[in-house]
Structure formats: C-alpha cells, structure tokens
C-alpha cells in the first residue's frame, strides 16, 4: 500500500512536469482554430504539421540561427571537454581537501550572475572583434560550462580505480599512454555525460547570447523574438525544435552512460 502511494505520487509529479512539454507539443501541432477557441481541448483535434513546414521553409531566417546554435554548442562542448578533461584529471589526483578547494575556486566564476558580467564581456569583445561571432559566443559560454563539466569529470576521475592506471604504467605505458589507453576509454560514460551537459548549457543559453549577438541570433534568441511578437505557434514550434537535439544526443550516447562499466576490474 505504501509503495503504491509513493508510486502514485511519482506518477503525478511526472505528469505535472511533462504537462507543459505536452502543451508546447500540442500547440506546435494544432491548427490555430484548435487553440484559439473558447474551450481549448487537451487533445489534439485538428492535427497539422503546418507550423513546422512554415518554420523549415522560412529559409535563412530559420537555418542561420539553427546553424549558429549547432556550431556554437558543438564547439563549446568540445572545447569544454578539451579543457576540463585534463583539468579534472589533474584535480582528481590531489587529496580530498585540495580537490575541494580547487572545485570551489572553479565555481566562484559561476557565483557571479551572468547578467552582471555579460555587459563587460560584450564591451571587451567589441574591442577585440569577437562581438557577434561564433568564437566569441563559444568563449562566453565556456564561462558557464567549464565549472560544471569540471565538476562532473572530477567526480568521474576520482572514482576511477588507481590500480588500473598503475597497472597500465607497469605494463609499459607512459603516463600519457596510460591515460589515453586505459583511463579515458573507461571513463567514456562520465565524459559523455559531461559533453551532453555542456552541449545543453550552450544550446539553450540566452543571456550571453542576447548581449553578444546582433545580426546573427541563436535559436533561443530567435524563439524569444517570436515570443515577444506574441506568435504562439512559431515560438512553440521553435521550442520543440530546441528540445529535440538534446533528446537525440542522450539517445545516441546512452550506451556509454551505463552503470557497471568498470565491473570486473577490481574487487571492491
């Protein structure tokens, strides 16, 4: 009975969380008459893909923001991994106290609200010619991504059995080779999680983008544009499109995100 109650509550919470998503999906797939009625229904009565085809056929108006967002997010997550994998590996080698201090130090950058640093960043970028460029946006996004991906990866590497790495070194690997042949392949799960998270943090980023983009907006900016114009169908269609890549990425990489990847390595 108790279990049943907990189960019921969980389902209820799940539905509550999913309901807005459903509404978004519903609006993006319903004809205007279905939505603008005095008693809108919960189900899709008049199904249409018209809004999607409208968005997709709007040409550069849609494709440029999509391209910019995809490139920015991909580059930002790759760059984040490039920096945070070595950083996190190094941090994880310290003892617990120093590790903790370093993590806190990294997170200090996140304690400053983005709105308050976005303006100085934008001014600096205008001076050095990074304003309204992908490179500039990637750099700005790294401010928010790096602490998080470092944090995830420090956890991953700290949990990595030290003996495996030592074994590789004794088996004839240099330190570098031990990392590339043993540590990294066996940490792919955690690295993937950090990567997806980084992608997500850049993909839906709004504040830096709104300061640093002018002529070439990103997807969230474009969506905001339609929201501010009150275009319900465009904004919810954009919202659906923005949601998709993250789901897709998680789906593709889920085989790396599984527990028990290290089982059999050591006896705990």
């Amino acid at each position: 009975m108790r279990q049943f109650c907990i189960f019921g509550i969980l389902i209820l919470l799940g539905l509550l969380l999913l309901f807005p998503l459903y509404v978004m999906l519903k609006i993006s797939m319903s004809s205007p008459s279905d939505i603008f009625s005095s008693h809108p229904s919960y189900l899709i009565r008049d199904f249409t893909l018209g809004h999607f085809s409208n968005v997709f056929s709007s040409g550069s108006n849609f494709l440029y923001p999509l391209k910019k967002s995809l490139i920015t997010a991909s580059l930002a997550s790759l760059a984040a991994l490039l920096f945070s994998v070595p950083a996190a590996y190094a941090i994880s080698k310290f003892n617990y106290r120093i590790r903790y201090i370093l993590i806190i130090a990294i997170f200090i950058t996140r304690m400053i609200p983005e709105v308050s640093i976005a303006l100085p960043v934008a001014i600096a970028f205008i001076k050095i010619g990074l304003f309204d460029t992908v490179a500039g946006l990637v750099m700005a996004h790294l401010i928010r991504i790096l602490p998080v991906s470092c944090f995830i990866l420090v956890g991953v590497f700290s949990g990595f059995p030290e003996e495996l790495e030592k074994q590789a070194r004794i088996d004839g690997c240099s330190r570098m080779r031990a990392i590339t042949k043993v540590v990294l392949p066996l940490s792919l799960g955690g690295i993937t999680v950090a990567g997806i998270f980084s992608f997500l943090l850049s993909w839906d980023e709004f504040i830096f983008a709104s300061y640093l983009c002018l002529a070439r907006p990103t997807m969230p900016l474009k969506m905001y544009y339609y929201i501010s114009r009150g275009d319900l169908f465009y904004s919810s269609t954009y919202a659906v499109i923005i949601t998709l890549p993250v789901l897709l990425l998680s789906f593709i990489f889920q085989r790396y995100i599984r527990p028990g990847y290290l089982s059999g390595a050591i006896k705990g």
Partner: protein
Amino acid sequence: MAVLRLENISKRFGKLWALSDINLEIPDGRFCVILGPSGCGKSTLLNLIAGLEEPTTGRIYLGDKDITKLASHKRDIAMVFQNYALYPHLSVFENMAFGLRVKGFNDDEIRSRIERVSRILNIEDKLNSFPKELSGGQRQRVATGRAIAREPRLFLFDEPLSNLDARLRIELRAEFIKLHRQLKRTVVYVTHDQVEAMVLGEMVVVINDGCIQQISDPIELYQNPRNLFVAKFIGIPPMNIIELRLIREDKELSLEMDNFKLRLTCEVNKRLNELINKKVYLGVRPSGIELSSDGQNEAEIMFIETIGEDSFVHLRLSPTIEINVRLRDRMVVKTGKSVRFNIDFSRVYLFDEHGDRIYL
C-alpha cells in the same frame, strides 16, 4: 642478473615519514616476502620499487643499473595488485596481451606466450571471457598470468591473496611456490599475513612504522626475533609478553611483578647488570611453558581453548598478568582450578624497555 638493492630509501608524505632509511638487498631469483601490519609502509616500498612513486632520499638498483629515476614503464618489472586491476574492457587474452602489445611483440609471439602461461595457470578455457565473468580466484590467476607473460626481471606482488577466501588462498599459495620454482625469478611479495610469509618466503623482511625490524629466513624469524615487535608479530597464537622488573638479591637475579617471580638461571652478563631495577619484557611462546605438579609458580586457569588438535590454557598469574599455555599430552585440566607451571628458560626471550632484545 636481477639483484634488487635498496640503499637508504626514505619516503615522506607531507609531514609523515612512510619509510625511513631502508637498506635491503634481494639476491637474484630469491622469493622475498615483506611482512608488516597495515599502514607500516610496505605497499609504499613496493610502489617505490615499481616506480609508481619516487623516494624522498636513497637509490634503487636493479642488477647494476640505478633505476631510481627511471619511469616505471622502462623498468621491466611486473606487478600484481591486491584487487587484480584487470582491464574491464578487455578479454582475458587481451588483458594478458596488453603489456606485450605495448612493448611491440608480434602476434605469434604474444599468442604462444599467452597459451603457455594460461596452461600453467589453468585458465586456457577463459581466454575469451571478460573479467566480470570470472570468479575471484580466476581473476587473480589472470592478473598473475599477465605478469608472467611479460617475462619481467622482477615480480612484485601486493597482497595478491588477501581478497580471496581461506581455501582458495591456501590453494593459490601452493601455486605461487610451484611457479617460483619453475620461473626462478626474483620476487618481492608484500603481505600482512605471517602464514603466507612463513610458507612462501625464502627471505622475510619485517617492517613496522616504516623501518626494517628484521631480515632473515622464516625459521630464524620465529626462533630468534631481534626485537619485541617481531616477537609479538610472529607466531600463532602470539608469544606471551610479560612486563617485569629485574631485581638483584645477593648474587641472584630474578624477574618480578606482583607476586610472580622467575629466577634467572643464566650467567649474569654486563648487559643484564645495566638493567637491574629496570623494566624488562619477558617473552615466551605458549609451547615454552609446561604445566606440572612440581612447577615453580602457581596460577589460576581462566579458560581453555581447543583448536583442532591443540589445546591452549589461559592462566592468570597475578591480577595484571595473563599467559597462554599450550597443553601437552592431553592433560586434563579444569577452569577455575589452580595449577603449577614451569617456564622453560632456554625458550625465554628478554627485551629491554625500548623493545630491543637482551641476548643472554
């Protein structure tokens, strides 16, 4: 020749000296066991030899070569860890091949070596399995096989059996002896288990608090401990240690505490004279004491322990002194009764208050 020589090795972690002034030479082909309680620095010593850590001071030689600063992958050493450290993403075959591939051996050579090693270790049918499909004993065999396949100059074992259950431990212990006879390589084997050390070691190094306490063969270690630590540490059940005071009466020396008194029957040497009226530890193994009706001292029987064929009687000599005596000849004794006993003085060890042996 793979003689391993450690000269004045010390290792410091922060403020803590994990090892201080270790000097040790292990001859070629010798099975050397490093024995000590947990946290004594024995694993650190192994890591230093393996090159996984650098000593704070001192030098390490393998053969004639100084390997102190040499990276571990250039040392031609194989190591087996307590938790096996198998690569979980590789099959058993690939686990054993890993080191050989890194060293650039060709496939035929790798295959023939692994087949030979897996035959010796009885894991031929497991070559395509993955580590998670193996039992603890099999994993340990694979880890050992991986080390053997490398044909290194020196084998290091870091408590390889302590994660296994008792039966398997005895089985694999015997296999290690056979393997060593077959391979004739120098082995450094770290353990906290004195039985393993006694059975496997041709040479045993006892370490405590980062210092070498004694280096000798197992029998010598048991019969002739150099200090109080070794005396206490070696032997099951442990040696009885009694804290006494050396007293001189006329020309006779005796050891006393409360109402217990033991006359020294040996010659009085200079060393003993220095220790008069000082604290002295007397050590005697449970088998060095005999219960007999005409014994010198009297004590009360606390309880009796029977382990297989042996029985041990716990005696209370005084409110503060209790000893353990091995029962001979199926003597019948009862708890709570008082008995008389003799201490065989030829089997007594004396230690001064710093724990150093007083040789008589």
